């Protein structure tokens, strides 16, 4: 069976996470993705880890290998006129361009929708930028941490009201990059669908900041509805909703509904303290959390994670382990569902990767090939797809265009 996007032709000019993730979501469903990297340097993700043995190697970055499987890789210097001409030739035969060039870099190389649409009026072009293609922050510099901080979500995380001296805490990894990339994938597919349903090509302008502001849970609305600023120092109104340490790891204690709390109390053997008036409903447990926490930490500290997880879930109480990476790789549930996949790569060898975010009934998610080596498919694409002669390719190579 072919994937849902088989036959769709995508060109990616992507660095690090956001645009590469958008194109990965499409590549994993069968789209043909040609990824353009800078000659000699390549995608910056090649220089970010994790690396085997902690030794940086541009062909063995776990982040790069994950984000770029299923893609063809070519190198083009878009700042040279002949390089831009190659891009235009690729665009002429493509359906979609995904990029996350910083707007001043777009200006510098002359990348714009109007220019590319002259070569291909049916093109869907998606620009993923930190703050969007208009407005006073258009040309502001940004990195993962500052985009995450601009989105109103970073301010929510931290040690809580008992440790106001500790700053807001970044969530691990590249959540801003991934959220921008996933939203861009939805927006891009909306444009692609409009086109096959009789529409035209168009330009999609995604602001990474706005994708985060859009997922502020109920928190943003506290200002327009109640004039309340929400940040890491707020008390949780309901308890218990906390990670606690067991004998062999951490578990997340989670009782939202009263029946869940009653079941948890029964699981603990109905201790006397649980009958105290100050713990009698979820709001009181929130108000009196400092007292409750002492009892719970003592009891939870004597348990083991998987045993308490199973016993709680048997009673429909939604506890969850604070999974380590090892827990995830060894999970019987994830194994039974076949979540993780193995990919053989010429430089990095055979490794286990996260797999499909969604299982498709009729048009499967599939790994067809590993991430490209830098410039691996130059010949295949420039000769095989664009019809350039060997001599021309050698000439472009000697000029540093590819």
């Amino acid at each position, binding site marked *: 069976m072919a994937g849902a996007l088989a036959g769709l032709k995508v060109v990616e000019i992507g660095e690090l996470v956001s645009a590469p993730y958008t194109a990965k979501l499409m590549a994993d469903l069968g789209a043909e993705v040609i990824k353009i990297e800078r000659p000699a340097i390549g995608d910056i993700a090649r220089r970010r880890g994790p690396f085997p043995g902690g030794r940086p190697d541009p062909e063995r970055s776990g982040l790069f290998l994950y984000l770029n499987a299923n893609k063809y890789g070519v190198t083009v210097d878009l700042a040279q006129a002949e390089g831009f001409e190659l891009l235009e030739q690729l665009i002429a035969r493509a359906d979609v361009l995904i990029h996350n060039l910083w707007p001043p870099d777009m200006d510098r190389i002359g990348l714009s929708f109007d220019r590319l649409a002259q070569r291909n009026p049916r093109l869907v072009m998606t620009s993923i930028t930190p703050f969007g293609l208009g407005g006073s922050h258009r040309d502001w510099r940004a*990195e993962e941490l500052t985009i995450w901080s601009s989105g109103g979500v970073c301010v929510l995380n931290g040690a809580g009201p008992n440790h106001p001296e500790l700053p807001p805490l970044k969530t691990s990894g590249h959540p801003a990059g991934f959220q921008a990339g996933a939203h861009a994938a939805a927006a891009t597919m*909306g444009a692609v669908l409009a086109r096959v349903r009789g529409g035209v090509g168009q330009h999609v302008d995604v602001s990474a900041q706005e994708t985060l502001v859009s997922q502020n849970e109920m928190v943003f609305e506290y200002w327009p509805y109640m004039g309340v600023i929400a940040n890491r120092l707020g008390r949780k109104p309901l308890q218990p909703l906390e990670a606690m340490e067991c004998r062999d790891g951490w578990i997340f204690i989670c009782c939202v509904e009263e029946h869940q709390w009653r079941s948890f109390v029964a699981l603990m053997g109905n201790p006397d303290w649980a009958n105290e008036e100050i713990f009698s409903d979820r709001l009181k447990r929130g108000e009196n959390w400092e007292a409750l926490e002492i009892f719970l930490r003592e009891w939870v500290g004597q348990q083991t994670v998987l045993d308490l997880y199973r016993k709680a879930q048997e009673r429909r109480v939604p506890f969850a382990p604070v999974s380590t990476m090892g827990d995830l790789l060894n999970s019987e549930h994830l194994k039974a569902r076949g979540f993780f996949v193995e990919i053989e790569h010429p430089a990095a060898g055979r490794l286990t990767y996260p797999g499909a975010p969604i299982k498709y009934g009729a048009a499967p998610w599939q790994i067809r090939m590993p991430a490209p080596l830098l410039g691996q498919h130059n010949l295949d694409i420039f000769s095989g797809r664009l019809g350039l002669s060997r001599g021309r390719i050698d000439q472009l190579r000697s000029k540093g265009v590819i």
Partner: protein
Amino acid sequence: MAGGPLSGIRIADFTWVWAGPYCTLQLAHMGADVIRIETATRPCVTRMLPPWPGGKPAGLDSSGYYNQYNQGKRSLALNFSQPGALEVARALIAKSDVVTNNFAHGVMDRLGLGYEELRKIKSDIIMISLSGYGDTGPYRDYVAYGPAQVPLCGLSSLTGYIGGPPMHAGYSYADPNAGVHGAFAVLAALYHRELTGEGQYMDMSQWECAMAVLPEGIMEYTMNGTEPQRIGNRDPWMAPHGIFRCKDRAEKVLGFTIDQFVAVAVSDDAAWQRMAAAIGRPELAHDPKFAALAARKSNEDELESIIESWSIGQNAPQAAGILQNAGVAAFVVADNKYLSEEDQHLKDRGYFVNLPHPVVGTRQHCGIPWKMSATPIAVRSAAPTLGQHTHEILSQVLGLPEAEIARLRESGALE
């Protein structure tokens, strides 16, 4: 295409809480007719959660949480314990392209609305389930709550202050992550149907979907067999890289002092030279303790205290502006008031939405985080009140005569 890129696509939306409504919100943004099937006997959880105008709930239509994630949708209120309600739902599905839900595994089957049933109603139907654990596997019946998904997926064990315990993300990150991936999956399936005529069923485990955006930690383990250390706000490839305290907000809010911070990420030595000059310490640019990344990493505690001794005297927006003017990546650690009132850029982009709502009046809501040049998109209406569109859907979408609608209302099938 005046109605947006998904104009003419109808979604029978059985989702609730956050992940599912976040999925269908993206589809509503692009012009799909999203009809939420709701019930007053078990209302959407977010209808009963804060914030509320004035801090107090006024019925089931006053929650800012619900009103944010259901903009541009319609609401059909059915009571499934009454005869006739299931038939209305089935008639709606027959006129829909997509059916969405985020119930636990098995709930749609028990309602009589499992995928095999739906195919009999409409042969090319597209259905997606966004459940916590997925449809298969030994834990498929486990109960999943938003706050517990963050630790379950591995994000908590990766996140924390140096030397400290595992921490949270501060919000139920796995929910919108699942929602936006679900929207992409629905659109990919619609594309597939457009080309092949074939519908399909899609099974999402929110747990797995969250791991798909955590490759750094997972591949550290699969490459090296080691669990990543928690490194606070630092980064192995950049320094300084952190969140630095600035002056508190000048005004207290509801009696509370509000602290403020600036986030700074210095990506290379040249950026560090610019930053040193911008904070009035140009001599540090070429100081052997700080000139190169490796040296800055070795002396990071001292580096951070130097920066904080500068930032503590600045207002956060001012600090971010000074650094940006010097060509250094920096931003206020934005809170809701900053975004709502003080981020002029978001206003200039026209990001926010202010539409009238019959119960809460006109309130500022978050809008669509992207723009489209040829099929313009806009939030078309405020979130629906419970059952606001029941009559118009039965009459205009299903074509039921008034007498039949009245009969259903009398029987209690309509709320």
